[in-house]
């Protein structure tokens, strides 16, 4: 490795901090975990070479505090920062500040983050690059009346989005024209509170769609490869619950087109590092570009298992100036991989995040099973951060085998003291529509019950 740094500050927490520390250890890099006061006893801190407490538990004072992270780098004498996902990972200002401080930001360059952070600008760039985008507004909408006019021109249900929103926030669907103005006002209000700008745009809403994304990896010399697709159609409140590869929604021809679009999208923005290009696939197999996620994703393990590559380690090597360690022809997917996100949440109470102290935590193990987790017996799920406890990733020769193994693994998964979605996942793995691979993004609205269960058939 032509390393420009020999140590990495992990500016994140939870399972991804553990994942990054492990990658550092494998490459002989000194790892330092930047943590909040609530995470002083975390597994990532225990595994790392050193740790720096950057602030109190609220994320805005610790994990979102860019200045504190740079001070932590100075204190721990680390030459690079891995931001993980969420928090500062997509913050162009932070990436810029790292560059100015002479610290390698392990991710794409600031200019790429600026573009991908503006969904409207990204949409325009993708259309110019020849990617399919949904009919929608060309620029930001000025007011609710313009939103109405564009929606009327598009026809049918529309989706209104905050241009600089993320993580499933700042999004409303208007099923009829009469709902457009209220949806515009709501999204703009959300955007003013939580986003960098209050720009809002509108696109056609695809009712019967699946979420399929392409994993890309790019080095600083413009070499780009894709690491296949992931189908992330099972979601609740626009948050992914289950991811798998390959996707059942696409034919081999469509897969080739999808992956080519992923490569074209990465090239069009001058992408570097690991990234994901998200698409919607409608029931006729039409593709449309959604957005680019310029970071490592929660569900990266699915691709790692299917392709036998180390995406987090590769990301670090690329940041150190290495060329891509594999060519497209080297990358082959084998079998079928499914990931279930095990969250501390209560499906019976509107998927509310659950907190408390875990009693016993026994994740499954064995052949074909990978568990990425930071939880353990006695682990306290606090109110400050997201509810992800573990990612259970299972591999099979084909989907039926992967499903069978996932059922066994879920059955073995034992977690007491805090509400989890384990029971939901167990039901999902037996659901006829999911097992047949016929589910779409509205799966939970159609088949979910108020008590957190699933009905097998639609009640007419």
């Amino acid at each position: 490795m032509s390393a420009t740094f020999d140590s990495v500050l992990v500016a994140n927490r939870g399972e991804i901090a553990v994942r990054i520390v492990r990658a550092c250890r494998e490459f002989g890099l000194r790892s330092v975990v930047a943590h909040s006061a609530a995470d002083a006893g975390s597994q990532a801190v225990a595994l790392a070479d050193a740790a720096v407490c950057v602030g109190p538990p609220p994320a805005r004072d610790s994990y979102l505090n860019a200045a504190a992270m740079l001070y932590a780098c100075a204190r721990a004498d680390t030459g690079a920062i891995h931001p993980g996902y969420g928090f500062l990972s997509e913050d162009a200002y932070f990436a810029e500040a790292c560059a100015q401080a002479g610290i390698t930001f392990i991710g794409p360059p600031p200019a790429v983050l600026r573009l991908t952070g503006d969904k409207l600008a990204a949409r325009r760039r993708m259309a110019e690059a020849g990617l399919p985008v949904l009919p929608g507004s060309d620029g930001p909408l000025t007011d609710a009346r313009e939103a109405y006019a564009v929606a009327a021109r598009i026809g049918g249900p529309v989706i209104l989005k905050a241009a600089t929103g993320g993580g499933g926030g700042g999004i409303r669907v208007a099923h009829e024209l009469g709902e457009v103005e209220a949806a515009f006002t709501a999204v703009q209000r959300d955007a003013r509170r939580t986003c960098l700008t209050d720009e809002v745009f509108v696109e056609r809403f695809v009712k019967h769609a699946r979420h399929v994304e392409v994993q890309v990896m790019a080095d600083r010399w413009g070499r780009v490869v894709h690491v296949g697709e992931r189908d992330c159609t099972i979601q609740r409140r626009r948050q992914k619950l289950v991811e798998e590869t390959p996707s059942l929604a696409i034919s081999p021809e469509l897969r080739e087109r999808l992956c080519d679009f992923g490569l074209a999208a990465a090239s069009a923005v001058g992408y570097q590092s690991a990234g994901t290009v998200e698409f919607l696939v409608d029931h006729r197999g039409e593709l449309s570009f959604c957005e680019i996620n310029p970071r490592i994703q929660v569900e990266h393990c699915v691709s790692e298992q299917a392709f036998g590559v180390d995406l987090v380690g590769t990301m670090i090597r690329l940041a150190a100036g290495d060329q891509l360690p594999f060519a497209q022809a080297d990358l082959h997917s084998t079998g079928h991989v499914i990931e279930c996100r095990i969250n501390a949440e209560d499906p019976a109470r509107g998927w509310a995040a659950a907190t408390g102290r875990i009693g016993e935590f026994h994740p499954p193990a064995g052949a074909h099973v990978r568990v990425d987790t930071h939880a353990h017996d006695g682990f306290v799920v606090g109110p400050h951060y997201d509810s992800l406890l573990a990612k259970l990733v299972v591999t099979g020769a084909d989907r039926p085998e992967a499903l069978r193994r996932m059922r066994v693994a879920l059955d073995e998964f034992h977690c007491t003291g805090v509400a989890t979605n384990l029971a939901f996942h167990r039901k999902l793995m037996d659901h006829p529509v999911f097992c047949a691979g016929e589910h779409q993004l509205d799966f939970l609205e159609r088949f979910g019950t108020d008590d957190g269960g699933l009905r097998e058939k639609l009640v007419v």
Partner: protein
Amino acid sequence: MSGAHPPPPPPNRANAVDVETAARLASELVDRLEGSTASHVELVVGDVRLAVELTPGVLAASLGQAPPPPVDVAASPEIPEPAVVVTAPLIGTFYRRRDPTEDPLVEVGDLVEVGQVVAIVEAMKMMNDVIAEAAGTVSAIHAYDGELVEFDQPLVSMGPR
């Protein structure tokens, strides 16, 4: 060894034990409740009732009305006045002086009043006062001038006046 049953503890002593046990259990309970969604918990040990109210992010414990906690000075264990440790309010650069030409804000042996500035932590060119929240005599200074300190790092220890 007489082999006889141990005598029952005197009433006063029992009360003191209850209070001690309640206090210990309460502190364990508060640890366990951190991050929980519970809003109200009651703990009864012997004659002592302890109510814990939780508001998000804040734990406030209060001793119940009935029965009133026994006031028995003689039975209370001697609690030494604890040492106070002033910690860093944020990550940044620790300074003992406001200005390089000035004397240090405090030296070992200095008497410090509540609210007195004992050090500075600089971050992003902002000088943040480090304030003593209790009075005492400075017994140790743990960081050196110009040290990059982490959040909550002990900076200054103070003993009783």
